[in-house]
């Protein structure tokens, strides 16, 4: 902008007429494949590129909507903590940075704690809001993890944490570092109550966040392509002065190196999580010897790979049959059983009916 555009242009444009009111963010480019993405299609695809499968970031509220059944959840209040313990000031005051972030995100700090069901399983989710100061962990975030864990224990629900964070919040100095043990104390409460503690590692999970509660989960699930690590790439490169291996610190790399259990595409997250929680929650359910013997081969294993629609329906059907026999198993969990049956000519419609029936039973239970 200069005097020309400020003073001359407005006059001309007023002659020509006001600019057409067209939002300019209808299309965006996929950062991975450069494919053009239409906003409505993209949001329908849960912000996953429909050309190449690249996972773009989702907001923390979308995240909860994806994971909880029907996108329904109840937000849990977290008591406020003392603000700015250090009276920190760099080029800007920390309190000003906080206010800006609060105005931007309409959130008290970089988290949301919510309760609901994931595929019918009770769960409390504590999710980081990366839009709030890079999802950094200070006392308020530590408090949110504690509140989430305590709620899970009180309601006998699974506890799911979804980090998306650069690490500890520098502006809170050592108070932020102390959130590392504090968060581990929180998740230990969940573990001591024999409730499942699942970590969904999303892009990015680094520093003090990865080196605390995020790496002590019962099950570690990561989203494809998520950056996960302790030290930053630049720091490592400056230390070793060598090129980093390809794919270094990605979810897939960590899977190869044994640090996480699985990399799961966004649209399969809720199913996977619900299934795991249901399997792990046996302690919360009455012992049923009949169901146990009946389930045998199906419960423990899970065949990976995409099933086509019909096979999937049959999987669900098998699941429904299993349900009738009193087995606490999700339909998809026993896809393995269903696969050989593909050869038989069971009608998909029957399967659908069975599934619905099973669903009703589940609700009744």
């Amino acid at each position, binding site marked *: 902008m200069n005097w020309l555009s400020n003073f001359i242009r407005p006059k001309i444009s007023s002659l020509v007429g006001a600019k057409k009111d067209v939002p300019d963010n209808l299309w965006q480019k996929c950062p991975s494949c450069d494919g053009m993405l239409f906003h409505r299609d993209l949001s329908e695809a849960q912000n996953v590129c429909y050309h190449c499968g690249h996972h773009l970031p989702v907001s923390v509220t979308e995240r909860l909507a994806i994971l909880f059944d029907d996108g329904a959840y109840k937000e849990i209040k977290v008591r406020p*903590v003392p603000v700015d313990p250090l009276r920190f000031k760099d*080029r800007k005051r920390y309190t000003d940075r906080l206010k800006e972030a609060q105005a931007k995100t309409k959130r008290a700090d970089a988290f949301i704690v919510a309760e609901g069901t994931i595929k019918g399983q009770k769960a409390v989710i504590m999710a980081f809001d990366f839009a709030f100061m890079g999802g950094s962990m200070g006392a308020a975030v530590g408090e949110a993890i504690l509140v989430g864990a305590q709620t899970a224990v009180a309601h006998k629900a699974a506890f799911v944490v979804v980090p998306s964070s650069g690490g500890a919040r520098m502006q809170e100095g*050592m108070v932020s*570092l102390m959130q*590392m*043990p504090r968060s581990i104390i929180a998740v230990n409460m969940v573990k001591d109550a024999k409730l499942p503690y699942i970590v969904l590692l999303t892009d990015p999970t680094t520093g003090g966040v990865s*080196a605390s509660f995020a790496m002590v989960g019962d099950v570690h699930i990561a989203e494809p392509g998520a950056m996960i690590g*302790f030290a930053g790439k630049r720091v490592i490169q400056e230390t070793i002065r060598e090129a980093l291996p390809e794919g270094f*610190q990605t979810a897939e790399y960590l899977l190869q190196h044994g*640090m996480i259990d699985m990399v799961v595409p966004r649209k399969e997250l809720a199913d996977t999580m619900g299934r795991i929680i249901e399997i792990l929650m046996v302690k919360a359910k009455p012992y049923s010897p009949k169901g146990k013997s009946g389930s045998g081969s199906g419960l423990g294993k899970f065949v990976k790979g995409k099933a086509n629609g019909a096979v999937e329906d049959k999987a669900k059907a098998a699941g429904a049959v299993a349900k009738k026999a009193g087995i606490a198993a999700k339909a998809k969990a026993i896809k393995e059983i269903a696969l050989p049956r593909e050869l038989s000519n069971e009608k998909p419609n029957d399967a659908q009916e069975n599934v619905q029936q099973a669903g009703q039973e589940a609700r009744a239970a």
Partner: protein
Amino acid sequence: MSQLEFEKPILELEAKIIELQNMSGDAGFNIADEISRLRQKTDRLMVQTYSKLQPDQIVQVARHPERPHALNYIEAIIEDYTPLSGDRNFAEDDAIVGGLGRFRGQSCVVIGHEKGHDTQTRIKHNFGMARPEGYRKAQRLMDMADQFGLPVITLIDTAGAYPGVGAEERGQSEAIARSIEKCLRIGTPIVSVVIGEGGSGGAIAIATANKIYMLQHSIYSVISPEGCASILWRSATHAKDAAIALRLTAQDLKELGLVDGIIAEPLGGAHRHKQDTINSVADYIEKGLKELSGLSPDALRKHRSDKFIAMGR
């Protein structure tokens, strides 16, 4: 001996005194007067300098290569020290040293970051920057302490966990997280002393203790002042500002209620008075262990838990 910039006037006077002392054998009598005059001047200057050390100067003292390191302490205060090695999974990591021994007559497990004191030992100990194996060895030793009912003494002195490809591949994050978890889970007392640099996650991995003491001129921080400056000020030249803002000195952290006590260093810092410093540290460890003695395993766990839950409220 490496020199700290702000100590230069003191070091010059000290050099002069030594010079005069060497001359005194063959020259006149008023040299003794001159020496004592210089000594007084040095002492005055030392008091002046060390009574108002700025945070960035404390950072330099905390990193002083002549400061006593973990092995100096262990050698001096742990009888029958028996070092143990290896994480039983992948390797031995000398950045974290530790083993069994007796502290003032009491059987114990001791663990510490060791930086090394010359080129050879610094390389051997990787400058005190541990890889996952170091933290896994620490976990092993803490398990042993738990099994045999031994208190754990940890000596903190690291710039941080090692940032390397292998370290990441073998789960640096997981190793630190599990180490913190282990600290919280064991049923015997843990007393930690920050003797030099308390560098972020790499430090707290073995410092999640019932009692945390800091030497007067040690630092404990979530990030190095240089790292903080390069991120928040966009320039490492602001390290001095960052050192102040981060409140990383013993005094600051005591005020914030994050550490339990400050161990005074003799005038001129630990690097000038190694033995005195080591003795003071030992006294504090004894004090800490005494305060924790008689507590049941559950009470000790609860003590740690309550202590860290309160941090941030």
